[in-house]
């Protein structure tokens, strides 16, 4: 199961991810993040405390978010467990996102 919740407050977006972010559900999140393009978003924080799985498609949503929102938008990931942290490091996704 996968679930996500997006909230925005004064240009800062919090995205809470829960469960398995796999290729079957990644397009839903992708669509949601795409809606932010053109908005004045300064900061996006992915809360991944309850994220159990992320791989190819999920990482691409994170990278997509950075690309679409531009260089001025900072992307953070918080409450990262070891498994997710390793995936981020091994694939170089830590070039796009700051782990906090």
């Amino acid at each position: 199961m996968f679930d996500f919740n997006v909230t925005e407050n004064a240009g800062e977006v919090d995205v809470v991810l829960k469960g398995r972010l796999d290729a079957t559900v990644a397009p839903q999140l992708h669509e949601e993040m795409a809606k932010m393009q053109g908005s004045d978003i300064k900061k996006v924080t992915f809360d991944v405390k309850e994220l159990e799985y992320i791989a190819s498609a999920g990482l691409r949503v994170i990278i997509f978010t950075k690309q679409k929102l531009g260089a001025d938008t900072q992307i953070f990931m918080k409450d990262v467990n070891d498994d997710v942290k390793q995936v981020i490091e091994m694939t170089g996704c830590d070039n796009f996102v700051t782990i906090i």
Partner: protein
Amino acid sequence: MIRIDEYPTHELNGIKYRCGRVQPFGASVVGNSGVNFSIFSSDATYCELLLFHHGMREPFARIPFPEEFRIGNVFSMIVYDLDIEELEYGYCMDGPYDPEHGYRFDRSKILLDPYAKLVSGRNVWGSEPDWEDKFQHRGCVILEDYDWEGDKPLEIPMKDLVIYETHVRSFTRDESSGVRYKGTFAGLLDKIPYLKELGVNCIELLPIFEFDEFENSRVIDGERLYNYWGYSTVCFYAPKAGYAASAPLGLAADELKNLIKQMHKAGIEVMLDVVFNHTAEGNEQGPYISYRGIDNKTYYLLTPDGYYYNFSGCGNTMNCNNAIVRNCILDALRYWVADYHIDGFRFDLASILSRDENGAPMTSPPLLETLAHDAVLGKCKLIAEAWDAGGLYQVGSFPAWGRWAEWNGKYRDCLRKFIKSSAECGPELIWRLKGSPDLYGNRSAEASINFITCHDGFTMYDLVSYNEKHNMANGENNNDGSNDNDSWNCGAEGETDDKEILSLRRRQIKNAAGLLLLSRGIPMILSGDEFANTQYGNNNAYCQDNKISWLDWGRLKDNKDIFDFFKTIIAFRAKHPVLRRSDFYTGMNSLGYPEMSFHGSKPWEFDENSPFLAFGFMYVEPAVDYGTREDSFIYCAVNAYWESVSFELPAIPEGMEWETVAYSGDDRAKYDKNTGNSVTLMPRSLMLLHGHTKRNTRKGGKKDV
């Protein structure tokens, strides 16, 4: 706009599909969850696509290709609503089984797509496979949308390269490497600062195409031996999953691409050692993995009675100059350049690629010509190992079309002999230092990849520590590996406490490094040689996944002087373009000197045609010719003799002075202008001197050499 081909036309047990596109071959993502499958077979009469959930023995779908899905010899279909992250796929094919005439179709076999972009089944290195599973090497689908952030192949001029040959797993697998993800692409990433410090600008990786480490695996004296080097390809499009820490998540391609991107950011090219001469399917007794069951007659060179020719020494030989196979190889190389930003390739046993369909060498092999002139490969480096196991030896004569460089085996042999004091190799050494114009005179020194050691044979430390190979651990009764090593143990076989012997070995390593890095042509270093890494005398560690192969980084601390010696001369080479000139210019330069000259113990007095052990060579680098800051004279005194030798230095213009840059001897000698215009080198040592404008020796000032 909604496209008509986004909708399925067929359905079988809930799986929806339609006729696909014949190009590109392989499996390509269409839309969010569709995959286009396309595969070639000229002789198959039936083809079936099998879809598996990750790691399952039984497919969740078997879809026969309807006749209308075949165009020419290509079967293609698009299947919808697939979860590509957990999908694996293969094919079953049917057709004649008539080995005598080259047909080996077997409908009971599940076959790997030759164009699979990722292969699972060996995701964790050394993890025992499920041998009961009929589908051992399983095709996977990847998203081909990597974000390169503006990266592209570096296109460093060939003449400026310093190549560093390494094995992904050996490089960081040992605890002493100190990296986070040991033995993987991600582990290599952590060593980029080290490579930068050493100064190399090109890393050449032993095979990283998917291979099976369990091929011919066996246990000897309690130690599991593997197909460790991987010179036996399972799939030409897939990175070796077992080299990726993230492979269990299907992210091997991303991990490798990140490594290449970060290497490029550090100014280091990535070159691949590629094996197109044979595959992992072996001979008639070998397994069905892919090609044999898809189009045996197309992919392999077969004898008139249907057996496999064995010019590779590995059981079979790819039919490289067949038009289909040629395209397959070209497609693969283009893919690695375009999708992975690979900077160049070194072709294993490349002479096989020059053989025709009957195995005879061709003067103008179509494959080599195609690669030389290909548009996508237009700026990438092509390097041949210009011989094969069938006796073809083409060093200096490999069909090159001005594009192919060669591993210069003659350089290796000559340098090894000279370093251990074979005076009769002296005259040949002159040619080798010049960039081997005797071999590449109608091309350039860029065609000569100079090396003294490589993965095949002794490491540099072992070259000066062993007279004989010690390969018993390989389980072949010490019969494997070369017997012609031109090595010398300096007085004791293997490890010793004798200080003089140890000291001599250090000098010999530095002597070799000095000559290699001051030769014209392209130097290649075997990884670990810069800190005297050892394989304990094993000169063929192809199967050793243990301390024999793994670099012992503890030796870096113990042999810091050797590392510094390499680093100093690599930096010196980078700073002085005269060393990298490649056009065999023999005239005088604008300072009125020959650009490269040879000397005896007295300058300008030297008979380069008679045997010798002590000599000097000098490059002259006028600033006006090379755009450098100042004129430079670069003199290297070489003493391969077992006694000390004094060298009178060549006169240099008024206002200039000599300075010692590097010395392999351990008597701390250096040039001292107050004691005359000569230097004395201890037995078997080498000294590099730089003649430059006299410096103002300000206290604490930094000298620039």
